[in-house]
């Protein structure tokens, strides 16, 4: 098990917060809460070791498309594929009302 931290440039914090997913096998739980304007922080607690670069690359790809809102994101991951991680993040952003 590993705990990883990431930081990305961001826009404004949203008004709401959201929780998506569940720490089931092959799944992950994502807590999204308003953060400090300009910064998006992500903590990942994951059952899979040695995947820091893959997480970083996945987040970079997602946030390249669109500047994310300023959030503190907590991820509890139980071996989700990058596809599932992206899906959950997108669900989370949608619930927060990110546009």
């Amino acid at each position: 098990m590993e705990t990883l931290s990431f930081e990305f440039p961001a826009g404004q914090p949203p008004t709401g917060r959201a929780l998506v997913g569940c720490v089931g096998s092959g799944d992950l739980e994502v807590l999204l809460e308003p953060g400090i304007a300009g910064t998006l922080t992500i903590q990942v607690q994951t059952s899979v070791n040695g995947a820091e670069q893959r997480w970083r690359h996945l987040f970079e790809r997602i946030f390249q498309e669109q500047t994310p809102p300023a959030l503190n994101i907590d991820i509890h991951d139980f071996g989700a594929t990058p596809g599932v991680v992206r899906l959950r993040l997108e669900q989370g952003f949608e619930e927060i009302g990110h546009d």
Partner: protein
Amino acid sequence: MTDLLTKHSFVELGARQRTQALLDAGTYRELIDPFQRVMSPWLSRQGVVPQADDGVVIAKGSVEGLPVVIAAIEGNFQGGSLGEVGGAKIAGALELAAEDNRNGIPTRAVLLLETGGVRLQEANLGLAAIADIHAAIVDLRQYQPVIGVVAGSVGCFGGMSIAAGLCSYLVVTREARLGLNGPQVIEQEAGLDEYDSRDRPFIWSLTGGEQRFNSGLADRYVADDVAQIQQTVSALLLQGVPQQQRSRRAEFYLARLAELDATPQIEPATVRALYQGERP
């Protein structure tokens, strides 16, 4: 065909959504929500990733205007197994509901049981919490009915199957299973001939919702549909405590078991006839 269009699966919902579905619109209020991050003190050190709500949702609200607290176990996290925190959430909520009643507030409880029992990574704290839950159910039952719902797909096993047996009323679906020991453990302890844990029809024939209902070990058998389950739970909450609490029927069950020839291996039909059959 209309059924497929109008039914909404309860089984496919997670614990939080199931809880929301059962409460009157707009009344849902979660206690110790996941953002408070009250998590297991024991999992991380074992390399197990925790969940922010420790796999249990506690929410207050109303059902048909009656004050209710719902405790829902998330079957997708560690098989719904109970650890120290999740167990304390359930026991504590039931304890406060009983206290409410002693202070004139008629709070009732609904337990959504999707659980394998004790979380082995927390063993004795899970077991102790389940004992607390049993104590709290019996206490609250002095005042109000405690409704248990086992919907599937995990079912209700281990120490929490005893909690199901303590409920005033038990609601089950076809997908549900209710048994003390998990199939794999029985197979391990007693051998394949005694119990084949991979034989799904066999397992459901003995411990599935339909069989339990037809044996008098569950009170309502409902389709996997949110509306039907919500209506069933509401009706039971309005009903008050049952005339006969199943867990207080020792004389009845001892008498029926005395009639049973236990020499041959047991069949589902035998159980149904034994418990539900008419007697002169």
